[in-house]
């Protein structure tokens, strides 16, 4: 047995040869931590002098703590690159015969030799990194920003980044032990780091392709978990899961850390075993263990072929399976040729290994067929309405496109995320009636209609997500019933996700400001701000369906609160104010805002054009045949009359219920005008009430013209021209 002193002597000697690596880590970390902290600190110190009322020292400490903490993507990226490079520096000798002869003829057991190299690779990172964290803390202490939060973030950061480094470093070490040259080593390391994510994305996409109701990214925990096979993904999520924002509870942090440590131990054990069993003569070859070749092919080729098939399909933009099959076969053959050439280091070797490629092809087909079958079964699966606790229903037509600020995670949510979290419709009959009709009426994803996102929550806590595709008419029949429910209104309006007591500022936009995304800040006390939000909540809940349906919003308001992590000001989201919200409008006026129903910012109208697209038929291949018509109005009385029926951008698109009815179906409006500052503007608009009869008649006249064009009479043609001129 090798003595301990010999072990450390060799380790010391080996470390001496790698001093440059210590230096590299130190430089990278020195720039990314103490220097960056110093620069940021100087900036914040200036803030303290100029905006003292907005920021305190503790708040700035919170912001600086993020640099030393776990969710710092720059540090993560640096650590990943260092882990990659250092693992190769420590173990690249395995790729050279003369070096293998040298090391493996020394009187040291291979396991010990691996331990020496592995530990040195860890030391060259850990020592300079910890030193730089300490230097960063010194900088913060000198600036007076070091406190308990900073120390906690630093310690957590050290722990998590070391685990992250070890995850990446061990994975690359394992890749080196399994390969015989640098090229295949890099490929193997990249594959190890990306395979889980690629497989997860592939299954997600295949499922999405085969199912019409599958909602990618919602409730697919199994598919998400596959991504955890990628160590880099584990590290990224470890950083987030232990950060101030991502850590939901101490238990979840412990599970995340322990899970990562178990994964790390497993990887290290595999790397150690691979090193012990690695034949020294594999230096220079593609793969260390010949037995791995078919296994690698069977793991890599099916995934690559399936991804290739999806890419091929996307490139030709065809829904037919034919191009998918072509893509699959081409990618399969290309992958086979590439892998075989790499394995044998000879392009002529493509004729070899056909057996394993055949198995890989079968595996690929099984993945395809499996996902297809599962997707179809997923669509057919019935919801247990008897045990339904509540549901969230989110038609795409009411998606405002605005984000909701989720303070707990310090992230932005889409409206779908918000609705799924906040809407709890308990009316089982309504949910059952609507979703059953959705299931019956469900169309292909590319159908020109409405997407209905539904989250079902059963009594046992299980959650199911579905996305149906139906036409406007089907949805319109239910919208009034939805709006009668308080749960629905609360679920679609961000106002009910905000605690009025937390609001410290309110920003305001009228139509004109919305166009430029400008905001006024209201001059109200915190008590008034809370009252304003409460009034808005009450008025939104009590508004009649007609009030929301027949009128466009006249303004948008943005409640703001302090970010609980770094105390910066955050807007929760945009809330639309309707003309009937009198209490709200009064408080807005009290805050100094000029609120009126006609604050559209229009000084002079120039032209309003209306476009209508009707689906009149389907051709033999199932493609829709449309009939288009467009009329323009330039007379002031016509335009002014028309203005009452439309809402201008940004209030015309998906601001809520009023624009989701069938009225807008097929109609788009374009308005040219001079604004109150004399600028020539052009904007889109939509009908919010019914389309005026005279506009429909004009459109009908225009629409008939092209249909009858081959046989149309001269008289009709003249009529059409006159209408166009008018």
């Amino acid at each position: 047995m090798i003595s301990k002193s010999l072990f450390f002597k060799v380790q010391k000697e080996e470390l001496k040869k790698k001093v440059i690596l210590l230096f590299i880590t130190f430089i990278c970390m020195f720039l990314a931590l103490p220097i960056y902290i110093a620069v940021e600190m100087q900036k914040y110190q200036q803030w303290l002098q100029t905006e003292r009322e907005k920021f305190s020292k503790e708040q700035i400490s919170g912001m600086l703590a993020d640099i030393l903490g776990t969710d710092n993507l720059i540090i993560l990226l640096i650590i990943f690159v260092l882990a990659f490079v250092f693992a190769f520096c420590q173990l690249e000798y395995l790729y050279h015969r003369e070096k293998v002869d040298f090391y493996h003829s020394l009187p040291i057991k291979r396991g010990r030799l691996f331990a020496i190299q592995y530990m040195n690779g860890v030391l060259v990172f850990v020592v300079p990194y910890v030193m730089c964290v300490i230097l960063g803390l010194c900088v913060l202490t000198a600036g007076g920003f070091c406190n308990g939060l900073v120390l906690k973030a630093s310690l957590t950061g050290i722990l998590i980044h070391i685990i992250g480094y070890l995850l990446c470093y061990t994975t690359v070490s394992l890749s080196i032990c399994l390969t015989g040259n640098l090229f295949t080593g890099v490929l193997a390391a990249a594959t190890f780091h990306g395979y889980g994510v690629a497989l997860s994305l592939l299954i997600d996409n295949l499922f999405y392709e085969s199912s019409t109701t599958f909602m990618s990214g919602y409730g697919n925990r199994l598919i998400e978990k596959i991504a955890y096979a990628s160590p880099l993904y584990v590290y990224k999520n470890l950083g987030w899961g232990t950060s101030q924002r991502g850590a939901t509870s101490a238990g979840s942090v412990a599970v995340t850390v322990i899970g990562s440590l178990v994964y790390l131990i497993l990887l290290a054990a595999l790397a150690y075993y691979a090193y012990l069993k690695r034949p020294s003569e594999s230096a220079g070859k593609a793969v260390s263990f010949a037995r791995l070749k078919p296994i690698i092919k069977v793991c890599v080729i099916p995934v690559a072929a399936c991804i290739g098939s999806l890419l091929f399909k996307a490139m030709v933009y065809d829904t037919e399976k034919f191009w998918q099959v072509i893509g699959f076969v081409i990618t399969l053959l290309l992958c086979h040729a590439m892998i075989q050439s790499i394995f044998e280091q000879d392009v002529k070797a493509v004729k070899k290994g056909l057996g394993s490629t055949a198995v890989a092809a079968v595996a690929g087909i099984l993945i395809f067929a499996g996902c297809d079958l599962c997707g179809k079964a997923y669509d057919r699966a019935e919801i247990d309405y008897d045990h339904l606790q509540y549901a969230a229903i989110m038609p795409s037509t009411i998606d405002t496109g605005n984000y909701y600020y989720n303070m707990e995670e310090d992230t932005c949510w889409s409206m779908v995320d918000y609705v799924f979290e906040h809407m709890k419709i308990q009316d089982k009959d309504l949910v059952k009636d609507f979703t059953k009709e959705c299931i019956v009426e469900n169309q292909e994803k590319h159908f020109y209609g409405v997407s209905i996102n539904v989250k079902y929550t059963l009594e046992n806590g299980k959650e199911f997500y579905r996305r149906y595709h139906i036409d406007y008419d089907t949805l319109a029949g239910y919208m009034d019933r939805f709006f009668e429910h308080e749960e629905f209104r609360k679920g679609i309006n961000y106002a009910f996700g905000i605690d009025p007591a937390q609001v410290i500022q309110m920003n305001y936009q009228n139509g004109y400001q919305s166009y430029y995304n400008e905001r006024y800040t209201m001059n109200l006390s915190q008590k008034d701000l809370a009252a304003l939000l409460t009034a808005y909540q009450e008025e939104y809940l009590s508004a009649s369906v007609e009030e929301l349906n027949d009128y466009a919003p006249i303004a948008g308001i943005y409640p703001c609160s302090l970010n609980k992590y770094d105390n910066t000001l955050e807007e929760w989201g945009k809330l639309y104010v309707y003309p009937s919200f009198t209490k709200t409008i009064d408080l807005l006026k009290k805050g100094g805002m000029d609120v009126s129903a006609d604050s559209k910012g229009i000084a002079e109208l120039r032209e309003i054009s209306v476009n209508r697209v009707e689906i009149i038929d389907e051709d033999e291949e199932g493609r829709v045949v449309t009939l288009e018509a467009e009329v323009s109005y330039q007379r002031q009385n016509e335009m002014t009359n028309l203005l009452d029926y439309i809402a201008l951008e940004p209030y015309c698109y998906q601001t809520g219920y009023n624009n989701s009815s069938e009225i807008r179906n097929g109609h788009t409006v374009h308005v040219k005008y001079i604004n109150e500052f004399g600028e020539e503007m052009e904007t889109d608009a939509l009908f919010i009430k019914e389309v005026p009869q005279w506009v429909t008649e004009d459109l009908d006249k225009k629409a008939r013209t092209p249909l009858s064009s081959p046989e149309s009479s001269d008289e009709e043609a003249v009529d059409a021209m006159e209408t166009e001129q008018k």
Partner: protein
Amino acid sequence: MIEAAKISKSFEDIKAVDDISVTIREGEVFGLIGTNGAGKSTLMRMLTGVIKPDVGKILIDDIPVYESPEAKKKFFYISDEQFFFVNSTPEEMARYYKNIYEGFQIEKFYSYLERFELKKGRKINTFSKGMKKQLSILLGICADTKYLMCDETFDGLDPVMRQGVKSIFAKEMEERGLTPVIASHNLRELEDICDHIGLLHKGGVLLSKDLEELKCNIFKVQCVFEDSVTEAELMTQLDVLQNERRGSLATLTLRGEQEQILSTLRSGNPIFCEVLPLSLEEIFISETEVVGYDIKKLIF
């Protein structure tokens, strides 16, 4: 003693070493001869525990060599492609080895460096190929191990240096019983240094014998007889390995004891009879021809 018993090694479809058994005794110089691809380096790498034989076992002083630091402490391996750390100097390499081999004699190493006019502080990557080989040998000798495994180490050394190295070998063998194992494809380079020769061909041992034994049992004799009948009768009484004739002058390579051969030949009243010195190459040519090989194609 190093013992390799029935070892075989294949690299995918290629059989590099096939059922070889070799015994290397302590205190003698073992030469391993063979053409490129004969399996010398593979055998050396197996003897040094770098690679594991598929079949068979290798013992160094009764300890299995693979994964055994105890066995590996007993030898120093000089690979055919020597490795030195990047930007290292002889001094740094010696310091590294001093940590590995307890008996490494650093002072002796410095004195050898001086003798071979190699500077201890000069970067090794500025050394010539021959200088690097010298350095490897000196490091190996100063490691003070019982065995010194040299793979193609003497190839490329100039005659003066080779003589210098040989004299060091002789001294070390005498002083501490060093056992060098030298693999080479050049028979002439090993001729004057080896005690025992193993000839490898196509992964197998064609021949493994003591040089003295070989030299004492094979002789080259030139003789002229008056009549061919007498000569033919005598030939039947002798173990003739080779018989070349130029006119009446016969050059015979014979196996047997010298006195007995000469008395047999003299009984035929030769006109001329003389024993000539036999080179190692000639001995090998004769021995391998007997077993059906044309050695001229196997060695240089």
